[in-house]
């Protein structure tokens, strides 16, 4: 639920990057953090294991600028992707205004993507959200790899509800900002 503080003239929203382990959720935030202007940037907070896998979440506050005197500020989060952390994902998803589902486009990760997507749908429903109305964007990441499935195949398996979806190579920044723009607009549309 977005928070609109009239006295402080701020609009706050929470966007969560969800997906299976090693699909590139943290990379998305790192790229955003690296490219946004200093004026709208804060530190990227990462609660990670010793091997730099996300343990709790990554967090990046992002100022998008002012509209009618209101500062739009989105809080970007990632969830830990490993299966072990299912309940932590529930905790991080709490109060989300929009979700980016990052899928790993490689053929051998399709089952992991499907499992993660089913879990997301289950968790959102449990939190009282109507999935078909909830701001959701899909990103097919690692599309540069030779093992990546073609987009129509990914669509058939992962995007049956036909949400906006983007091809990406997050590690070099491709598709990262298009995804962020799309989810930002969906969230604002729901204000």
């Amino acid at each position, binding site marked *: 639920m977005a928070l609109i503080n009239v006295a402080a003239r701020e609009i706050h929203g929470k966007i969560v990057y969800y997906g299976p382990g090693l699909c590139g959720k943290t990379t998305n935030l790192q790229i955003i953090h690296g490219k946004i202007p200093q004026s709208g940037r804060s530190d990227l*907070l990462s609660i990670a294991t010793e091997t730099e896998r996300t343990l709790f979440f990554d967090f990046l506050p992002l100022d998008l600028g002012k509209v009618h005197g209101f500062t739009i500020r989105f809080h970007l*989060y990632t969830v830990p992707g490993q299966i072990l952390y299912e309940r932590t994902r529930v905790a991080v998803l709490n109060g989300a205004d929009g979700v980016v589902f990052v899928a790993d486009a490689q053929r051998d990760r399709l089952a992991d993507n499907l499992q993660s997507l089913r879990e997301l749908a289950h968790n959102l429903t449990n939190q009282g959200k109507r999935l078909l109305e909830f701001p959701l964007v899909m990103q097919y990441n690692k599309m540069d790899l030779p093992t990546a499935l073609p987009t129509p195949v990914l669509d058939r398996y992962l995007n049956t509800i036909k949400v906006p979806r983007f091809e990406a190579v997050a590690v070099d920044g491709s598709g990262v900002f298009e995804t962020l723009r799309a989810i930002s607009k969906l969230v604002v549309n729901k204000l």
Partner: protein
Amino acid sequence: MCDLGIVMVERLDPSLTSLIVGEEHSAAIVLCLTRLMEETGATHIMLLDRAGQILSWQGGDQRQMEMMHLGALLAGTYATSREMARLLKEDGFRVLVQEGMREKIFTETVEDRWLLVVVFDHQAHLGLVKVLAKRATQSLAEILHIIVEQNETRRSQFRGQVRKAAIDTIDLLFNDDSTAESNRTTEKK
């Protein structure tokens, strides 16, 4: 408004997409937080929603960015503790206390929807913070109840004003990146 008794805030509709806090209610929240800060000797006090977004905070501007990160971490910690409670078949943990060598953090839920966070050092006593925070949560619940009640009217006023301009701003902001890489993008309408 700070001395009103216990009022239950009704459960928020989970499909509610935004909550608008007007200036008069912000002022009432600030009054409660300021009073709590004076009475406890706390260094910082915040009111968060469960997503970690700060409704109001007191204690000077110099640590604003730290407070934002702290808000996110505390909301995550609270959400995690709820999951732990669920596993233990508890109703929930209403209070979290974190004690360091110099600073302590006391967090209490307000109607299971918001979090009151008190940061204090050795000059304040945990027992006093607990008692006064409990009283403050009751007052805050009253204010938040009114905010929720009036939300739909405010939303319809606000929506028309800001939404279109916000979307235009987002397009403008992301324009450079998206045109440079548009050949990779396949937005599906």
